[in-house]
């Protein structure tokens, strides 16, 4: 276990280094931030002074080296636009995005797993076909369009839920969250549902496929031959067997939910990292974009690690030592 963790941390460092290279040189080639940051009527000397102040006059490898050594000390640069450390900016916005992503995944699991279970246990019944067809819609309709439809139906036509912004937050266990008040939750419902729809379809299809496959295995028949109740067979034997792959996929998807949040946050004006990153890309605020991408990468790797460890808990046949 210890060896496994050390190896994974080293791998994580290598991946982050590679990503930082790609991100840094990629951003460099997009354009010169001085062009956007400076007012049109700036003089040539003001321009030169700004470029020197931002450190853009030095050769790119020197800039990268400075970026890297600062990053190792936890400094991912200062935003050109806000003049605040970019990492601070990101972590200010991070809780809102995290909350949205967690709510979306919970919806996806809480709704998707039971639907998938039902569909898997009753294949080719009318309700199964309805569920599967619904999941195809969830997969194939564009996410932004689903978001607009949600707003149209639930905010404009029915007037049940607010269509934009984050509601009031309160503290639960020291965490600033929308779950503290009903108004906060009301604001969360539409964006979380929008973000959940795609994953919901995924969870339905995955659960259904897993259930169908598992129900045909001999151990289910043997369990029935032992006189176990269907409840016990499905709840314990099948449930525990399919939990591992579902947790794996959902855990991996968590990272992509955070990444996808960009679209949902734009539609619902949710003040999370997604809106920050869109703004920063528009303004060529390099340090913020770089810091965002590195944070997301680290998050992905961390989630992978957690999933791997969880897997060994759920499936006794898997041992971490054997993983390469």
């Amino acid at each position: 276990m210890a060896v496994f963790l050390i190896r994974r941390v080293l791998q994580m460092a290598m991946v982050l280094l590679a990503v930082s290279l790609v991100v840094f040189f990629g951003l460099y080639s997009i354009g010169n931030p001085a062009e956007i940051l400076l007012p049109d009527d700036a003089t040539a000397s003001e321009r030169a002074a700004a470029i020197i102040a931002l450190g853009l006059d030095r050769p790119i490898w020197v800039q990268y080296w400075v970026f890297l050594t600062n990053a190792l000390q936890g400094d991912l640069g200062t935003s050109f636009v806000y003049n605040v450390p970019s990492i601070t900016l990101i972590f200010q916005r991070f809780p809102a995005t995290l909350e949205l992503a967690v709510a979306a995944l919970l919806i996806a699991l809480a709704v998707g797993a039971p639907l998938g279970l039902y569909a898997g246990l009753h294949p080719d019944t009318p309700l199964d076909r309805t569920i599967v067809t619904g999941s195809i819609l969830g997969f194939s309709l564009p996410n932004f369009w689903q978001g607009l439809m949600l707003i149209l139906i639930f905010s404009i036509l029915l007037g049940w839920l607010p269509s934009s912004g984050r509601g009031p937050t309160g503290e639960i266990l020291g965490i600033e969250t929308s779950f503290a008040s009903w108004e906060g939750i009301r604001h969360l419902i539409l964006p979380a549902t929008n973000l959940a729809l795609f994953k919901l379809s995924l969870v339905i299809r995955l659960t259904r496929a897993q259930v169908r496959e598992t129900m045909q295995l001999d151990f289910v028949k043997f369990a029935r031959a032992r006189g176990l109740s269907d409840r016990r067979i499905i709840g314990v034997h099948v449930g525990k067997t399919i939990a591992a792959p579902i947790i794996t996929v959902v855990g991996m998807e968590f990272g992509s939910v955070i990444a996808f949040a960009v679209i949902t946050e734009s539609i619902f004006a949710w003040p999370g990292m997604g809106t920050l990153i869109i703004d920063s890309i528009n303004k060529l605020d390099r340090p913020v974009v770089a810091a965002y991408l590195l944070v997301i990468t680290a998050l992905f790797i961390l989630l992978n690690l957690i999933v791997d460890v969880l897997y060994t808990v759920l499936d006794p046949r898997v041992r971490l030592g054997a993983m390469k």
Partner: protein
Amino acid sequence: MTALLEVTGLKTHFLTRAGAVRAVDGVDLTLRAGEVLGLVGESGSGKSVTSFSILGLVDPPGKVVGGSVRFKGEDLIQASPERLRQLRGRDIAMIFQDPMLTLTPVLRIETQMVETVLAHERTSYAGARERALDMLARVGIPAPQERIRAYPHQFSGGMRQRVAIAIAMLHGPSLILADEPTTALDVTIQGQVLSEMQRLVAETGTAMIWVSHDLAVVEAIADRIIVMYAGRVVEEGPVAEVIARPGHPYTRGLLDSTPSAATPGGRLRQIPGMAPSVLNLPPGCPFAPRCAHVRPECSTPPPVRRLGPERTVRCFAPLIPEVGQ
């Protein structure tokens, strides 16, 4: 003696798009308490489906479409799902072919044994665990206290099958359906498991249906034998008599294709052709196209003929003389 199990005219069909597959098509069999019956046939002869039908464990699209299964006088075909659940594992236990696949991989042996006890009895967890430990020791698992905490993949094939046997014996059932339980094992392990089973059923007076394609194994363990072909019983009788003097050409063919029966160095005999598809069988004897003794009347349904006090054969031209009606 009254019959423990009486199956009459059992028909299990698989309703597929291509038509009804008559996997089991009118099987009769009886079993007395404590008796071991060998159910023999090729793959697809319906022997496994027969045993699954007895317990109501045929998966869709399969369905028991006719006949009756009487266990201690009670018709299992008509029994409610809950009644069947009560009987399964308690009065009628089952052991399957592949011990790799029959135990739930993600649960400890302890969990699986205890839940089997608790499914049929109101007792404490500790009491159920005690029973499980006893039974593991009885089937020859060394250090049961330790091994009960293990997961199925931590056992060898033979040990895993012993665990499956221990689970089947937990409630002291009066009937065990064993579906090729030694087929997937090494020959040496096969022998051990076989003699273990023999000892256990003899000690406890448990009746058993031993489904197998291996005549040598059946000869070793069974009292009586039933030979199935294309979903029907073609021959039935005491195992020693049937193997010494088979009455049906198909039984003869099966015996001849057993390597141990062949002359050393001689060519192994085989039955020409393939087992027929049980989809749209002709009305006559299903073995006729492969039979060396085929006659014109074989295209009509063959009669059941009595060859001895306990021997019957379904054939127009039995290999040994019929006894007077």
